[in-house]
């Protein structure tokens, strides 16, 4: 296991915990100023999105990347190199795994970005309330 993957995933989990705490604190602060609008839902949903980003990243790291490594190793073996049919099949499989990896990366970063936007929105709304 590459340690940089663990670093990023640990960062995501701790960030998710911080966002959950943000939701709890915003919930309590809304009660302090007697605001009934549930803006705490925004950071709570952001935490769910971060969990989704974590799952996408984990699936790519622990399932697809080892699959890709195995395909590369199989491709390097001499009996595959000499068999054009098997080589073609392996190339197709590799392209499919590569596509899945790119899509997962996009989905993971999109969830990360939307989560950040939701956190910012809830805090901005609260700041606007207390700035009146």
């Amino acid at each position, binding site marked *: 296991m590459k340690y940089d993957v663990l670093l990023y995933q640990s960062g995501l989990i701790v960030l998710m915990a911080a966002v959950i705490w943000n939701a709890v604190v915003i919930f309590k602060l809304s009660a302090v100023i007697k605001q009934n609008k549930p803006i705490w839902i925004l950071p709570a949903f952001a935490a769910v999105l971060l969990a989704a980003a974590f799952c996408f990243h984990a699936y790519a790291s622990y399932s697809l990347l080892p699959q890709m490594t195995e395909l590369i190793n199989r491709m390097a073996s001499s009996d595959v190199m000499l068999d054009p049919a098997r080589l073609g099949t392996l190339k197709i499989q590799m392209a499919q795994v590569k596509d899945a990896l790119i899509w997962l990366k996009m989905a993971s970063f999109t969830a990360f970005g939307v989560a*950040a936007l939701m956190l910012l929105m809830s805090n901005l709304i609260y700041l606007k309330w207390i700035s009146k």
Partner: protein
Amino acid sequence: MSEEAMQVYSHIAVVSAGVLFWAGFMVFGFIAGRYTKVFNRETFSGLLMTAPSGILIYAILMLLRSSTMVKSQQFNDGLQVAAYVFLLVSAVLCLAGMIKFGKLLDELLKYKG
């Protein structure tokens, strides 16, 4: 969508996310700062405003990594690890700030109640 377009989109998304997270936690730091005056107590607003800086550094390092300026793979890997370390440290500090502020808030609400 072409593969190149998807890669560009991913780079833009991760850098924007870093900047937005930094801004989100900074705004929370401002909120805590306002409550320093209201409660006349230290609300850890300094910690809450400096803690997300690591997320901004993460975004800058990821931007640098995705740029065409850096050609060495070894340097790129180093940038990625540094970015992840900044993200983790910053997230830990943000969590610590949130927990400290949350506990203070509980204490004050109990006193008020």
